[in-house]
């Protein structure tokens, strides 16, 4: 007995965001960090900030933390992103 059966997946990719152009260098740039608010981000992001400033000459680092670590970033944080040259986003588990 043969069966015709249907694909159970959405079959459509999620609407993808567009990747920002890569930066040639980090020197003199503004870099933002978006933490999910978990404790693990503090030390890690702090270390990255030092590296960016001391080793890569980043001009400014902006640290932001989401109000709910399980939800998308707050609109006011998303609105800020356009003022940054690059952004790091990560979880702290």
């Amino acid at each position, binding site marked *: 007995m043969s069966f015709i059966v249907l694909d159970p997946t*959405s079959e459509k990719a999620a609407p993808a965001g567009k990747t920002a152009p890569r930066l040639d260098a980090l020197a003199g740039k503004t870099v933002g960090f978006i933490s999910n608010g978990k404790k693990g981000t503090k030390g890690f992001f702090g270390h990255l900030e030092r590296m960016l400033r001391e080793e890569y000459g980043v001009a400014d680092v902006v640290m932001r933390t989401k109000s709910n670590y*399980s939800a998308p970033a707050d609109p006011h944080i998303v609105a800020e992103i356009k003022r940054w040259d690059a952004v790091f986003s990560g979880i702290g588990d």
Partner: protein
Amino acid sequence: MQLTSRNYEADSIEAVQELYHSSGWTDGLPIVPPTPESVKACLDWAMMPPDQLIGIEPVRGLAITAEKLAVNAVMAGCLPMHFPVVVTAWTAMMQEPFLAHGATASTGGCAVLVVLNGPIRLELGATGSFNALGNSDRATAVIGRAIRLCLINLMDVRPGVIDRSTLGHPGKFSYCLAEDEEDSDWLPLHAVRGVEREASAVTVMAAGAPRQIMNEWTTKPEEILETFAAEMRANMRHYSIHPGNYAIVIPKQLRDHLRAARWDKKMIAEFIYARARIKRGEWREVGKGAVVKDRADKEYAAMESPDQLLVIAAGGPAGGFGAIIPPWLGNKSHAVTLPMGVCVDCEPPKE
């Protein structure tokens, strides 16, 4: 009716199983082959076109359509008459307060608890009696499973992909129960939560595993409910201290004592709200002293208000066994109750 899902041909039932398992489309158990006929039957029953939009997953913008829900519902073992419950549950899960992405991706490993109320329970043979939180009946078994298969296939909630659960729990196979409305004069859950009592309704909650309690040695409401509150305090000590939607499942034997003393759901919720509290300093006793800091005397309640407690009448006729069902994590996700057959966020027709 024109379905748009990709077709596959398989020579045998075994070949169907291997196709679905090897593609990562199952929960590990065998599935019912979702043929075009069986999927159309579900859509016909619910009077829905295949492309009807049930919701858009708010984080990644994934469209959830009736056809895809139906494919997964058939795979789970649903009959057409079960399908409208799956649709309503998913409509509820797509509401923002439910926070579907966070609740299904979290390391916390919760599952989607589905509670059925109203006449639909009787139509489907979901009684909320014996084994209410287990394999009590066909309807709740397959509806709960359908929720999980839809998550796997429509939102990539696969272990290690979107689902980052450390442990998960058995409710992630199926976690659905019906309230026993016939045995008591208590307001059913959906009516407590603002839906017309005569309507059928579905409540979804991002829920941890049930924690069973037993108290068969008293008839006093305060003592019975103290056992429930104590289990909630234990959860606050050992798992999460933050307030949110807890559910409690009260079986007939304990309900009878409460009703004899004329306690209704409101009184129960108020009592539990008053008693399910701990001080942050108690975390020192359970190995979590590092995060007590200077807040040892700060008191935390299990709920922000009595309204956050979902009181559910269910369970077999004998035994003083109840359960508390904790929230995934405090108020990150809120339980959502929707009546069946109601359009959510529909715009009025344009003149």
